[in-house]
């Protein structure tokens, strides 16, 4: 699987009349709400502290996982450790079969997308039912979520209206209230009929062995509590030490994600009541590759709030589809190359101007632009991003820039060629890309250096 930043998508989206405008204004509203919500508290102090807690948790991940496991078991749950997405999906299916489940109701979970769980369940004859409204819409459309907290953000209300009309055979409406009610009514019985309820995890608390899920719609409560069997699929980086630590993240998560002071529901699963069963599947699926990289490790602090997507000028223009895999936006471009392999996704971190707006917003203070540059370097080191031509050109350019004489020659070449691009030879082939909508700067008749010498 090779993942490219989809330039075609860029092109289409930039020229499609509705989608980017809807996306852009939604994202702007989200950032405004976030700023309003964070203005009232000691934001910088909180994010500093959140960063420290995550740093501690990740440095002690092995201990915390073991502690979480023993507490979770004491609560009456079972823990499964899975190395790959494929293995995690297989274990999930095993549990469904053991309990004879015919359908699975699912709360919102990005890990589930990594597992391609819906496809796996369907292939096994088990019906996956997405219950988060955005996920439900995306599932109906046969698409993939394009935002980590707002899966259907790329669709306008009219898009959703005609989708419902087509797929659910209801009268067309583009009123979000009516559309939401339609989904509610459709899903009611599904919760009660499902054999298994699945959620992701926002946090796993080592001290208590409780899984915490944060949501607004109530579907997380229903999905986790209604069916007789509950399965939590949890990326290993979600473990934090204590319940008190959670308080810090709760202050940050809702404000960053939706601009709420507190999300409507913060669920803590204490343990299965009479005859019910509770499982937790720990998923690695490339996380230890991030963990083993002392620089990229910081990306495991992510609490998936979506703020870096909301503010990203690239994401706002292309939406999540262009990033080719599960996680879009700045955080996606950082983690995807490590999770799926830099040889397959080395291009993603280049789709950024490194403007740094994401780092300013990140509630756990992940230095995203720095990590993007780090992943670029890994991609180049692995030969996964630059052509041999580019590598050779950069090497010879560097040689030129390493001496005054070489520099003078480059300047001379630029003057003779009349093109600024001669200063950066590996750009030359792309001079046309520059010139499509931009005038090319002229080489001055006298450089500053010459002027200085002669003054």
């Amino acid at each position: 699987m090779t993942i490219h930043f989809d330039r075609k998508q860029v092109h289409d989206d930039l020229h499609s009349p509705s989608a980017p405008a809807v996306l852009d204004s939604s994202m702007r509203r989200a950032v405004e709400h976030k700023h309003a919500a964070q203005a009232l508290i000691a934001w910088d102090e909180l994010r500093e502290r959140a960063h420290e807690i995550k740093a501690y948790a990740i440095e002690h991940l092995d201990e915390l996982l073991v502690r979480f496991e023993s507490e979770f078991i004491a609560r009456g749950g079972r823990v499964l450790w899975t190395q790959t997405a494929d293995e995690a999906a297989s274990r999930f299916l095993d549990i469904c079969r053991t309990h004879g489940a015919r359908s699975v109701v699912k709360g919102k979970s990005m890990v589930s997308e990594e597992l391609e769980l819906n496809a796996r369940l369907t292939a096994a004859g088990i019906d996956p039912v997405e219950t988060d409204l955005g996920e439900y819409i995306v599932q109906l459309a046969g698409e993939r979520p394009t935002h980590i907290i707002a899966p259907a953000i790329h669709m306008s209300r009219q898009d959703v209206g005609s989708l419902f009309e087509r797929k659910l055979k209801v009268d067309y409406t583009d009123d979000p209230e009516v559309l939401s009610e339609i989904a509610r009514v459709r899903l009611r019985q599904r919760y009660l009929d499902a054999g298994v309820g699945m959620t992701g995890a926002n946090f796993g608390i080592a001290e208590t062995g409780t899984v915490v899920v944060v949501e607004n719609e109530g579907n997380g409560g229903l999905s986790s509590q209604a069916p007789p069997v509950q399965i939590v699929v949890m990326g290993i980086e979600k473990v934090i030490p204590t319940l008190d630590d959670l308080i810090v993240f709760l202050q940050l998560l809702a404000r960053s994600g939706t601009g709420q002071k507190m999300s409507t529901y913060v669920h803590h699963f204490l343990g299965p009541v009479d005859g019910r069963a509770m499982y937790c599947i720990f998923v690695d699926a490339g996380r230890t590759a991030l963990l083993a990289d002392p620089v990229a490790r910081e990306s495991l602090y992510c609490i998936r709030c979506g703020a870096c997507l909301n503010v990203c000028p690239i994401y706002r223009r292309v939406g999540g589809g262009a990033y080719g895999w599960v996680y879009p936006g700045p955080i996606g471009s950082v983690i995807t190359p490590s999770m799926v392999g830099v040889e397959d996704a080395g291009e993603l971190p280049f789709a950024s101007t490194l403007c740094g707006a994401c780092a300013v917003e990140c509630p756990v203070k992940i230095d995203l632009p720095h990590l993007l540059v780090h992943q670029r370097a890994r991609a180049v080191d692995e030969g996964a991003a630059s052509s041999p031509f580019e590598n050779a050109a950069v090497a010879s350019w560097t040689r030129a820039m390493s001496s005054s004489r070489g520099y003078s020659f480059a300047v001379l070449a630029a003057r003779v060629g009349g093109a600024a691009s001669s200063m950066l030879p590996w750009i030359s082939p792309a001079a046309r890309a520059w010139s499509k909508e931009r005038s090319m700067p002229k080489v001055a008749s006298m450089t500053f250096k010459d002027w200085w010498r002669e003054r």
Partner: protein
Amino acid sequence: MSRAGTASEAYAPGDTVALFIPCFIDVLFPSVGKAVVSIFERLGVDLAYPEDQTCCGQPAFNGGHRKEALELAARFGDVFEEYKWIVVPSGSCGAMAKRFYSTLDPGSKGATVGARVFDLATFLVDVLGTVDVGARFPHSVTMLDGCHGRRELGCTDAARRLLEAVGDIEYRELPAIEECCGFGGLFSVKFDALSTSMGSAKCANATATGAEYLVSGDSSCLMHVGGMLDHRGSNLKTVHLAEVLASR
């Protein structure tokens, strides 16, 4: 949270300031370098220009070519080693030296020397304590803020304050000033459609102010946005902050 380099030592009158004139300014926009010289001369600051300087290595660094970037960072350390104060009329190249040399190789000579780099506006305002440099520019202006200067070096106020102190100038705030113009170095050609889409938004916001000039402390952003304005035959002219501060 400001990453602005504040001088650990105060600038003493008589201290020499070394000019770091980025390669593309040297070749494409030498008038910017000349303007910096004239500002400092007016302020009576002693200047040096190490003639061996070339490129800071940012294109290689941002392109993921770490080894080459390291070589040029080391070279920068050698060339500027003897200077306590280094001033650059570019937030972006300034961020490369001040912030990213230490990312590349913490504790290296390049990193130590790079830490002494100041972007022009920050140096004038925060180090020299000068807001009014005695300039006169009888035009309406709006300002394009380079992202590296703004977020990596934390300098936003300095440029604005300098502009506002210029005689006969009319400063107009650029809407959405914090949004990236879409240049991004290699990004501008690797993802040209996106780059110019972002540039269009910047052009539209700048044009909407009705100002005569778009000013920036970063020639690279200006090259991109100015290139777009020119391509579209816009009346809005671009000018570097140094050139405004040098005019009388």
